[in-house]
């Protein structure tokens, strides 16, 4: 028992060699490999071996026979913990669905298997069948396994893991209500997400390899629109009896309302506290009206509220009600206040009149606040907030809208179709330009001093950094400037002695399964946990938090009994 225990992650030739070396040195070794077989990556990368066989030769025979080595293939790490110099890993071994003790390698199964599929292991050279064997050299005669996807690639890519394959197929069958029901199992915001989602699922769609990806997002929107346009009452399905415990939710945005929705499904009433006059969070105050009309959003929110959710607007926690009151009065508290503080540019003259941050600009536009929008406006940034700000500015009546970005179009984080649309509307882009100083007259901005940039050598991560070109300074004349270079959460409403674990990005640190913060009974999700991210992730995590909250309350109830 005194033997030191070593885990080797990675069963490539180098990993196998390391495992053997450690075992020889007297350690107890566990070798964990994610693929079903050992011994990949057989060619040296640090020297040139000119002979008939430059292959590295992992000694798999010795590995198998060594008494101090345990090999676990087809396994991934789920969780890792460390304390006092010791590590504990939770490992998941994917089932092969074949009992290798009984298998006789007759290959009858792969002869009858009707599925020819892309062979991931062999990088698409040849096919594999759904049941197949791997690398006959590693085991007695290779390890047989049935390859069943956990989820199709679209579903696995979706932060909410929506069952896209099913809901698209149900639309193809003309079963729209059933399709919408499949979406709503994991997402209450089909109307809204169907309009605003940057749909990472479509970028992953396999059909993109042969022609164009399926328009998944628009399909989701279609079934939701179909219900709304045909005045079909969306079903409200909640348990017959609600539990006595109530949950407080701070923030009526995508995360908070998703959490409230799934709490209701689990039989819990919640009260949602919202600082703004209307619910919706960034859906309402961040996303411009031309992408998501308030009327549509409210249709969806009213339906969510009808599940037994109470909404209190114009109620700011820390001002109108204290955080401690919520902790005292409710069985659990969920924090989903988003990230509403625009980042400063950090250049001179930023405090001048005419300079505003992106989220504030969008919020005021969404609230219908009229400012004097004439002449030229400069937007700084390359993300979707910058695109929204640019397109809103154009609608508000600015004569010229310029987007200034320090890298090139290729590096812009905004969705390509948003950039296209902005360009289509006549917005001008200036790439490889960085702001230096806001210049003005009597406290009112008149222009922006900029510097031209060029892309330098790639760094270790492979990204090419922009570097300034010396002496390339120039001025863009403009009366207004919108800085859309990112936003952060504001967590000042929680008491300083609350003992919360706050990251250096001003976000809550939570358990990634339950979304509970380090303070028991307080949960958090959405932008205030992830930092600025896409809406569907906030919805997805809000749902996970709801499940975490329900489990927390049940545990407490059991303990009390």
């Amino acid at each position, binding site marked *: 028992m005194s033997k030191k225990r070593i885990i080797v992650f990675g069963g490539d030739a180098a990993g196998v060699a390391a495992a053997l070396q450690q075992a020889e040195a007297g350690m107890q070794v566990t070798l964990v490999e994610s693929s079903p077989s050992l011994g990949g990556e057989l060619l040296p990368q640090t020297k040139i071996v000119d002979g008939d066989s430059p292959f590295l030769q992992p000694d798999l025979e010795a590995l198998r026979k060594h008494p101090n080595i345990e090999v676990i293939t087809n396994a991934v790490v789920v969780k890792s913990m460390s304390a006092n110099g010791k590590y504990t890993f939770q490992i998941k071994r994917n089932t092969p669905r074949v009992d290798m003790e009984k298998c006789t390698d007759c290959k009858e199964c792969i*002869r009858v298997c*009707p599925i*020819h599929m892309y062979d991931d292991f062999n990088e698409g050279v*040849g096919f*594999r*069948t759904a049941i197949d064997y791997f690398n006959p050299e590693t085991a007695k005669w290779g390890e047989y396994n049935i390859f069943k996807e956990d989820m199709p690639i679209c579903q696995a890519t979706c932060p909410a893991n929506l069952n896209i*394959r099913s809901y698209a*197929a149900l639309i193809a069958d003309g079963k729209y209500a059933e399709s919408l029901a499949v979406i709503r199992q994991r997402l209450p915001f089909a109307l809204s997400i169907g309009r605003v989602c940057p749909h990472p699922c479509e970028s992953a769609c396999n059909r993109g390899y042969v022609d164009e990806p399926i328009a998944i997002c628009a399909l989701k929107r279609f079934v939701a629109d179909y219900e709304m346009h045909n005045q079909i009452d969306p079903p409200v399905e909640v348990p017959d009896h609600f539990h006595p415990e109530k949950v407080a939710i701070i923030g009526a945005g995508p995360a908070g309302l998703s959490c409230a929705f799934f709490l209701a499904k689990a039989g819990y009433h919640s009260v949602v506290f919202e600082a703004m006059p209307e619910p919706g969070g960034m859906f309402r105050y961040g996303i411009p009206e031309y992408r998501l009309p308030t009327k549509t959003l409210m249709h969806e929110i009213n339906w969510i509220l009808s599940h037994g959710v109470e909404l209190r607007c114009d109620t700011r926690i820390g001002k109108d009600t204290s955080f401690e009151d919520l902790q005292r009065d409710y069985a659990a508290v969920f924090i989903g206040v988003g990230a509403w503080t625009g980042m400063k540019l950090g250049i001179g003259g930023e405090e001048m009149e005419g300079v505003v941050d992106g989220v504030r600009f969008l919020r005021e536009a969404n609230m219908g606040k009229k400012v004097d929008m004439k002449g030229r406006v400069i937007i700084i940034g390359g993300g979707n907030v910058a695109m929204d700000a640019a397109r809103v500015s154009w609608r508000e009546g600015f004569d010229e809208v310029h987007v200034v970005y320090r890298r090139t179009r290729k590096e812009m984080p905004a969705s390509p179709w948003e950039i296209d649309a902005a360009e289509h509307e006549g917005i001008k882009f200036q790439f490889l330009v960085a702001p230096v100083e806001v210049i003005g007259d009597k406290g009112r901005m008149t222009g922006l001093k900029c510097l031209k940039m060029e892309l330098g050598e790639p760094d270790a991560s492979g990204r090419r950094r922009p570097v300034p070109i010396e002496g390339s300074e120039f001025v863009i004349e403009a009366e207004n400037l919108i800085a859309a270079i990112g936003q952060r959460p504001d967590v000042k409403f929680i008491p300083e002695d609350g003992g919360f674990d706050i990251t250096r990005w001003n976000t809550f640190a939570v358990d990634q399964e339950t979304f509970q913060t380090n303070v028991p009974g307080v949960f958090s999700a959405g932008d205030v946990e992830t930092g600025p991210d896409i809406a569907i992730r906030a919805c997805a995590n809000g749902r996970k938090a709801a499940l975490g909250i329900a489990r927390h309350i049940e545990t407490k109830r059991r303990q009390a009994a």
Partner: protein
Amino acid sequence: MIAEAFVNGADGIMVVGCHFGDCHYITGNVQGKIKVGLAERVLTYVGLNPKRVAFDQCSSAEGERFVKLVTTFNEGIRELGPLGTGDRLELPELKERLPIARTALAKEKLRWVVGKFTVFATEGNKYGEVFTEHEMWRTLDTIVMDEVATHEILRELGQEALAVTDLANRLKLPPPHVLRYVLALQRRELVDMVGVDGSSPRYKATDRAVQAA
């Protein structure tokens, strides 16, 4: 059965079942619809015009409807003309390929899968996934394409050793497709590389494959 009829020279086949939920054999008509659909796909793949195969529903009390269905179908076939006209392939070639459809349809693979689909649509598969119609046909389409190509390749390689390019020429399939099937068959020990002729590896069906055929 349907393929058999075409092999024997029929110009069109219509299958009429009872209405859903109205079947003496409970799910016989559901099965029938899938089976006819499958035969239609296999036959289309070997070159037949899908209009030559039809499935419809009619109860024993709807005599008039029955007559109308049959007449319409008959007119359609008359318009197409005899086998080999209005089809993707013309006669000698079509005739040659129809038996492949018959073999593919008679083999355990398609029969098993098609038999399972009524279960898939209601209870779901081994993983509890319930299939929609769209999913079912997508899946069947892939399997049909693979099965027909596999049988075609095995038939040719059962007769002589061929390179992938020769095989592709004969079967009028893209060479990369044929290559993948040949490699997959090799993995299943149904095809073997028997030598290299210049720069062309040649493949032949193994004894096991010949016996199974």
